[in-house]
């Protein structure tokens, strides 16, 4: 137990690293996933094909492979340090963006992978809106944009929010891959160093490690359950 307390700041730092990675990855994959979802529901077949292709590729590859491709496949293409992610201003809030190339590669991999799942969640949400809703809106004379903004998207969001939440929880868990892969400075990496290099006993480190992840995943899961219950109550 004392090991856990003595190294508390290390664990806290690692957890902070995980939270930072996950926050950035969540924002990134929601944006990219939204874009791909827009492609997938667009009326233009080529865009739909592009969206479908993207989802097929990234949903069926293990994140580990995506991470290898990002960290070892991008540098030969001239994306040496992925330093385009070193955004001024943002790197002040999240120092890893500025000083940790691997953090950036891991971020790219997680965003690419997760956005495929986010896209599917959004698309299923849109398809879950009963067709009659949009038909009614159109027969009232609403334009495409009005229809989208006032009728379809608000309902689609209700259907999609819980699946997206599950995707985010899975993403938090997946972010641990970054830590066991390289110097990502997250919770998994910190714990690995503590056990493998500093030779601390496994049990306390494991408690700190698992406690950190459970701290993130369980509350989010409970929150989603609550949202789901409310949604189920309002829909029927």
């Amino acid at each position, binding site marked *: 137990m004392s090991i856990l307390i003595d190294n508390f700041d290390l664990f806290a730092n690692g957890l902070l690293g995980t939270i930072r990675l996950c926050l950035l990855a969540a924002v990134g994959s929601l944006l990219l996933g939204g874009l791909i979802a827009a492609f997938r*529901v667009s*009326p*233009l077949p*080529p*865009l739909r094909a*592009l969206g479908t292709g993207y989802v097929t*590729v990234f*949903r*069926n*590859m*293990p994140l*580990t*492979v995506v991470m*290898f*491709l990002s960290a070892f*496949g991008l540098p*030969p*293409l*001239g994306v040496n340090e992925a330093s385009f992610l070193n955004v001024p201003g943002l790197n002040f809030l999240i120092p890893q963006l500025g000083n940790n190339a691997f953090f950036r590669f891991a971020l790219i991999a997680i965003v690419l992978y997760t956005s495929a*799942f986010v896209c*599917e969640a959004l698309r299923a*949400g*849109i*398809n*879950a*809106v*009963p*067709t009659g809703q*949009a038909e009614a809106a159109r027969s009232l004379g609403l334009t*495409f944009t009005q*229809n*989208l903004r006032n009728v379809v998207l608000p309902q689609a969001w209700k*259907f999609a929010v*819980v*699946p997206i939440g*599950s*995707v985010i*929880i*899975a993403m*938090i*868990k*997946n972010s*641990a*891959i970054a*830590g*066991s*892969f390289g110097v990502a400075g997250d919770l*998994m990496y910190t714990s690995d160093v503590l056990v493998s290099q500093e030779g601390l006993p*496994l049990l306390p480190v*494991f408690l700190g*490690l*698992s406690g950190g*992840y*459970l701290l993130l*995943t*369980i509350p989010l899961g409970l929150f989603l*359950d609550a949202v*789901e219950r409310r949604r*189920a109550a309002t829909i*029927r």
Partner: protein
Amino acid sequence: MSNNVLYDAPGPRTRRNTLIASLLAGVLIIVGLYFFVFRPLQDHGQLSMQLWGPIIDPGNEYFSPLWDRMRDGWTATFKAAILALLASFIVGTGLAMLRAQLRANKGRRYDDRPRLLSAASYYGSMGASGISRVWVEFFRGLPVVVTLFLVGKIADNYLQWDPLWTVIVGLTLYNGVVIGEILRSGMAGLPTGQREAASAVGLSAGQSIRLVQLPQAFRIMLPALISQAVVIFKDTSLGGLIVGYEEALRVGRGIVEVLNNSLPMYLTVGIMYMAVCYALSKLAEYFQRRTRRSGLVAVAPAAAVSALELSIEASGEPIKEADIPAQARAPR
């Protein structure tokens, strides 16, 4: 996309506009792919035969040793995936039966037993219920990386067994719990009449679970179970990363160290993973359509079905219980 929510059935003018816009978009995509994918590859020499030759040219001196190693790697991947899948199914089924049984025991008084034994049964079942709940929540919330790490370190220090066992145990700790939850929510989602009918014909709680509920849960949840198999298959790639199991990705990594062709090699491994997972997910879709058609699960609210589909496919996250009753409550 004929009956899409977003668009009306197109008229002649819309069809024409769509065609023009499609052609434009198609050209744009091809140009974009050329400039942002092909050109960088070409300019940095990533398409050269020196890098790709060992993978695609049978005349290359590295071709056959490379694919020999790859075959060993994939054999190892499949071995780990199939064994982990079997183990997860056994653990998951056991866990689901245990939790359903404990749930059925809730509130039972055990008046048929001597006083001490009845108290022991009562509190024992309460305790077991709590422990299994904590167990499930604990391992469901952890990344597989963490369970693999834990088992790997224990194996290093005490067990010294083959890394294959580490991978199987590590994956089973997580996926067993997930499969257990899938089956449990499948049982919970059955119409209440099933359980009532079972007890009406005199089946005990255990018999009702074993003979009536579990078989139906397996059938309803088959798509979810296949999707979980995809997750297990993908997660075997962590075995090479964390505990040094010689599976396909790690073999690929070893090859990259010799031939220095990181992009082509990892792409090849990725495409092979993709092929297997894609086939499995098509299988899941097929079973999903069949289950839906068979009327075992009501088609009713499209919302619940697709939300379910998603929570199954998206993440391997167990289905939220609330989704199931929505489907199963109103069988038609």
